[in-house]
């Protein structure tokens, strides 16, 4: 049962592998970008899941309340930054893809490689 108890890690690993698989196996650059995003999201999920405290609430303490059990807010804040980094990476990656498409009229990696070889 211990293995099932760690289901959050299993989910993270599955997502991570899906992301990496897409990243490696797909030739289409936009799909690669999607794979990269899924990979990053899996890590964000990992961080958020380790912040959870069983029975904990959101880390906002109502006035006058004492002994409130709340989840660790720090990983959430850090992941906010990681999400922003992810957005910036995606934006830049897609911008490069647009320019690659304009230069090569293709975004399939093997086609790009053939065109590079032909021009050499």
């Amino acid at each position, binding site marked *: 049962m211990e293995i099932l108890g760690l289901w959050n890690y299993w989910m993270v690993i599955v997502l991570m592998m899906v992301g990496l698989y897409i990243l490696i196996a797909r030739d289409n650059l936009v799909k690669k970008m999607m794979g990269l995003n899924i990979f990053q999201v899996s890590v964000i999920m990992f961080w958020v899941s380790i912040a959870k405290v069983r029975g904990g609430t*959101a880390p*906002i303490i109502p006035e006058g309340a004492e002994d409130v059990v709340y989840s660790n807010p720090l990983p959430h804040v850090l992941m*906010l930054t990681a999400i*922003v980094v992810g957005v910036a990476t995606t*934006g830049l990656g*897609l*911008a490069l893809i*647009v320019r690659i498409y*304009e230069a090569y009229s293709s975004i399939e990696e093997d086609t790009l490689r053939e065109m590079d070889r032909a021009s050499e």
Partner: protein
Amino acid sequence: MKIPAMRMREKLVVRVVSRFFIPFILLFGLYVQFHGDYGPGGGFQAGVIFAAAFFLYGLVYGLDDLQRVVPWRFVEVSLALGVLIYAGVGVASLLLGGNYLDYKVLDPHDAKHGLHLGILLVELGVGVTVSASMLAIFYAFAGRRAA
């Protein structure tokens, strides 16, 4: 970008509903922005929500109309200004004798008030930059004519 935009503009329902929604989206963006210091929210989310209202306008009325409302130059300047507001708060606290980004010194009488003010200003900087950069990304992609 241009042709679907023309079609979209002719659709009555889309036009009326988007016109109805845009003020509320903007208002919600401002709510998230200015509640970010005490409640959940803040500049990142607010900036994106705020920019989303402009995206909706751009999608329905076309990029040209949107750029008449928010010119490219304005986006570029606010992109830079937002970062400068953030870093400027840090430098201000430095000049007032604290460490970099030590908001407590912003109000010499009340450290708590200083903290509040600092977070508010920093979140404002974040909000401005995020919404401007979202718009910049939108402009960069949507404004590119197919070669």
